């Protein structure tokens, strides 16, 4: 009842707040869409400002903008880096619709650029703890194996860490990799990784932009504790067909886009595939008659992205997005036939509708699935293990701009989830031996939300929001009241102070018994034993413009994480019908300071990030109930990224990263176990403290060189990208283990700690083209 009263109060408060925005004002609204003149694709993040009215806005992902102006005549300035600046004078006697087609000012900068004048907008916005990246960012920074990866670029930002060297897992402000919400064109993606986390599923040619929220979560997002990664996919050109792609060391990609119906409908298809297996199968074939040769298993991954956009009229447009990706591991020898495959399938149908220049809506119908299958057949004995999570979702999001001072967002979300957890089927063909396990669960999740971004006076701006979420698993219901509040105080036009509070609930959980994200990790719903996780995060900080080229932010945060999940020691997670009994529950908390200095204009661009942070966990049944550091607790984290334009055709880039070593559990004792007859004695390590040791500090430098070829024909582009990963060949510890050192008679003489490093210096070359 008490919660109901709170809920009613907050709902009423939000309702009146929204009503408050609908007040009469002598203002006119100018709205419309901004598109690229050549491709006719919507351009997002374009700054539309009315300097004399001291107001401005940015175009959204559909290129839509809306600005209210309290004057009859106004000068509008439309600015976007990489496009020619547009200045128009408008005489307003009524609300108007004005569309813009922006022309590029540099052939080489025609790729998507998210931020036009991002620093000024960032100073003015209430939004904090947000990172925005474009495909262009990924292509400029040197990368492992020459394969551009946006998630790895995100790891170079303060507050975000990788799970291990070379991996694309994200650990955001002390949260785990399962606490990140990955959304692709509104669809949740459950596993964003290929090859055990070495590459992300996001093909840079298919991605338009990525927004990552570390805190201050907008009310439209929910369902995960620590971050939201919102990926928008590219749209095809409505005017001309183009082909682009890249040929790299381990993978190649190809994208084709163009009009289906000129200025009405477009398509884009992107594909990527690795080719380790082509070489390994050749090697296996060459050694076919070599009895001592063990064949190398085949491994490859691929992904396909597709999107169709259709503009019915000025007020209605539709899109269909599809993603399908798989990792495949195969081993076939004699009568053993082993296959392991995993991946995501996503389909989204969306409708954008503009009710008026003040109200617009996006409604999506979404299908998302992640599954893995392990199949093994040996003579007449077969074995199959699989797990799956599948969603059907409907979502509607509305944006209402009653005046220049208010920006109201509201919407609803409803989803049904199905989970197949550890389904095992095994047995002999004659049926005399049959093994079977596994559980199937169904659950439903829903949410409504509303928020308003509004100004109070010249200096204060607030964003108040509320998300109400509900989760059902059989007869068990869970509800969450998730307030989101943020403020901005403009100290002067170049300095602002910001603060935020956000509560998040997580109703489904990734069950992983390892220190890394593996494809076999299982998604599991909340139930009477496994309660929803909850986080509360507060953050505050300063945003500063230094001159007109540098942008500095300094944020401190504190995050409380309730009902965190871990496993009992020795837990059995695969094919366990009583999985609930293997969990233990505890809490976590994280705090830190993130400093970020960025330069986005001029010949030399880049950023420097520094994070000082602590991440703790405490579980009654782990570490004797004492608090311990999370594995990815990192005291100091530094990243430096520099891109320098040497000439019109030659860019050089470099990154340097440094991080305190991970907290790890290492044995501090041992004993001999001789066990029963038929077994040999073993040395058994004894672990006492959870994560009581530190790995050595991690640091690495990468360099890159991009040479752009002179185009032979108008509209053609190509470049050669040369990268060196780990330039000074630093042997960073991937893990440490203790080994027995034996003499020539096989007798153990001493024990020694040893370190395993993954990647030495690795040069790579990638050829990119577009025509």
């Amino acid at each position, binding site marked *: 009842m008490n919660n109901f009263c709170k809920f009613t109060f907050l709902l009423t408060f939000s309702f009146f707040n929204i009503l408050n925005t609908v007040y009469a004002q002598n203002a006119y609204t100018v709205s419309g869409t901004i598109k690229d003149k050549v491709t006719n694709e919507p351009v997002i993040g374009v700054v539309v400002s009315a300097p004399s009215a001291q107001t401005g806005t940015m175009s959204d992902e559909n290129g839509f903008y809306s600005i209210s102006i309290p004057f009859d005549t106004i000068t509008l300035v439309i600015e976007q880096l990489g496009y020619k600046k547009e200045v128009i004078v408008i005489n307003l006697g009524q609300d108007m619709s004005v569309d813009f087609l922006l022309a590029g000012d540099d052939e080489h900068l025609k790729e998507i650029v998210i931020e036009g004048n991002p620093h000024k907008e960032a100073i003015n916005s209430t939004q904090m703890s947000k990172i925005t990246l474009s495909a262009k960012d990924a292509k400029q920074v040197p990368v492992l194996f020459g394969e551009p990866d946006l998630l790895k670029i995100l790891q170079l930002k303060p507050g975000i860490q990788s799970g291990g060297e070379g991996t694309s897992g994200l650990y955001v402000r002390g949260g785990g990799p399962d606490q990140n919400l990955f959304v692709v064109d509104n669809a949740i993606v459950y596993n964003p990784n290929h090859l055990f986390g070495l590459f992300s599923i996001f093909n840079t040619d298919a991605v338009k932009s990525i927004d990552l929220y570390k805190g201050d979560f907008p009310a439209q997002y929910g369902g995960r504790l620590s971050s939201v990664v919102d990926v928008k996919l590219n749209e095809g050109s409505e005017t001309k067909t183009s082909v682009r792609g890249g040929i790299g060391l381990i993978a190649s990609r190809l994208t084709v886009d163009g009009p289906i119906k000129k200025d009405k409908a477009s398509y884009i298809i992107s594909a990527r595939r690795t080719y380790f297996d082509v070489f390994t199968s050749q090697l296996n074939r060459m050694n076919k008659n070599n009895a001592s040769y063990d064949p190398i298993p085949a491994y490859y991954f691929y992904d396909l992205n597709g999107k169709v956009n259709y503009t019915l009229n000025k007020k209605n447009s539709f899109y269909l997005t599809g993603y399908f990706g798989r990792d495949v591991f195969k081993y076939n020898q004699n009568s053993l036939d082993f296959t392991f495959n995993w991946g995501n399938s996503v389909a989204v149908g969306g409708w954008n509708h503009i009710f008026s220049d003040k109200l617009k809506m996006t409604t999506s119908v979404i299908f998302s699935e992640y599954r893995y299958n392990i199949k093994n057949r040996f003579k007449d*004995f077969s074995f199959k293990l699989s797990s799956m999570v599948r969603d059907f979702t409907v979502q509607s999001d509305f944006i209402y701009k009653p005046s220049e001072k208010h920006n109201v967002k509201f919407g609803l979300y409803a989803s049904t989830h199905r989970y197949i957890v550890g389904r*095992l089927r095994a047995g002999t063909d004659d049926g005399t031996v049959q093994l079977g396990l596994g559980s199937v669960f169904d659950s439903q999740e829903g949410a409504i939300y509303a928020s308003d971004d509004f100004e109070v006076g010249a200096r204060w701006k607030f964003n108040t929001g509320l998300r109400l979420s509900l989760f059902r698993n059989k007869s068990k219901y869970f509800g969450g009241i998730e307030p989101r509040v943020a403020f901005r105080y403009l100290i002067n036009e170049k300095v602002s102070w910001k603060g935020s509070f956000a509560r998040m609930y997580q109703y489904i959980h990734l069950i992983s018994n390892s*220190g890394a994200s593996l494809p076999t990790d299982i998604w599991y719903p909340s139930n009477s034993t496994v309660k929803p996780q909850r986080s509360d995060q507060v953050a505050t900080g300063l945003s500063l413009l230094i001159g007109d080229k540098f942008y500095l932010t300094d944020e401190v945060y504190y995050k409380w994480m309730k009902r965190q999940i871990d496993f009992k020691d020795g837990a059995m997670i695969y094919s366990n019908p009583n999985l609930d009994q293997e969990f233990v529950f505890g809490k976590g908390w994280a705090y830190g300071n993130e400093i970020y200095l960025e330069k986005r204009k001029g010949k030399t661009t880049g950023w420097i990030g520094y994070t000082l942070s602590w991440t703790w966990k405490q579980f009654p049944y782990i570490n004797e109930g004492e608090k311990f550091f999370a594995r990815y607790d990192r005291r100091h984290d530094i990243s430096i990224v520099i891109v320098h334009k040497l000439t019109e055709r030659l860019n050089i880039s470099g990154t340097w990263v440094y991080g305190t070593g991970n907290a790890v559990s290492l044995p501090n004792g*041992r004993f001999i176990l*001789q066990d029963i007859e*038929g077994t040999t004695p073993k040395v058994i390590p004894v672990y006492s403290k*959870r994560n009581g040791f530190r790995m050595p500090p991690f640091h690495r430098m990468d360099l890159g060189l991009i040479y752009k070829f002179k185009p032979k024909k108008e509209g053609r582009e190509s470049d050669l990208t040369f990268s060196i990963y780990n330039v000074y060949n630093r042997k960073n510890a991937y893990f440490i283990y203790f080994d027995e050192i034996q003499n020539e008679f096989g007798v153990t003489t001493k024990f020694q700690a040893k370190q395993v490093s993954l990647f030495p210096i690795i040069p790579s070359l990638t050829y990119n083209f577009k025509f």
Partner: protein
Amino acid sequence: MSQPVVEFYLEPGKPFRLLLTESAGYFDPPQITPIEGATVEVVHAGKVYYPTPQPFGINPVNKKFYNYSTDQNTVVPLDFDSDFYVSIKDKNGRIIEGRTSILRPVEIDSISFLTDDPEKAAIQVKFQDNPATDDYYRIIGIQDSIGGEGKWDLIFNDDAIQTEQGGIGSNYIFFQGSKVIIQLFHISKEYYDFVTSTKNASDSNGNPFAQPSKIMSNVTGGMGIITGFQPTQKRAYCAISSDSASISAR
């Protein structure tokens, strides 16, 4: 800090024998430190047994170390109903205690071999599992006629067994032409947890993906295991039949 470690396996018809040692720091010199001069009491069905300190040596039959034992005539009674309570007190006053019982043996029904490999074969063992109880098993296969490779050791529970006749199989592990001895142990959950946790602890040393496991002992005052069992055993000859694609057990 070191602590006492006990390994005590009670097998009907055999003397009470246990190994009592001290754990060591990981980088200490590689030697086993026996705990000497401790008092050991085993209480069962109102009778008390006293394994006494023995010279630290090896059992010539099974190659196992022990340092406390009863004499050859004082053996573990065949009793599946009453518990065995064990209490150990060392010279420093440390007390290690534990309790166990002996589970009824489970017979092996059949053994068969599968292969299309020219050298090696896989094995399939079938036995009767009681569907009404949660049972734990350990199966050990030893190849005694050809040296080197070829040993099978598996610990498992009956969660996945859907038919009354349980079955478990190996990969290509036994050399064709070898004599194979299969032992099936019907084990307690405590022993299953102990062996699994020691395996997890060993595996996590050197595996970056594994979460280190605490040793799950069934004793207080130290680490280790006190358990009892009576394994069943079957021998089979892994030989090529006239059909080269299948191998029969003889």
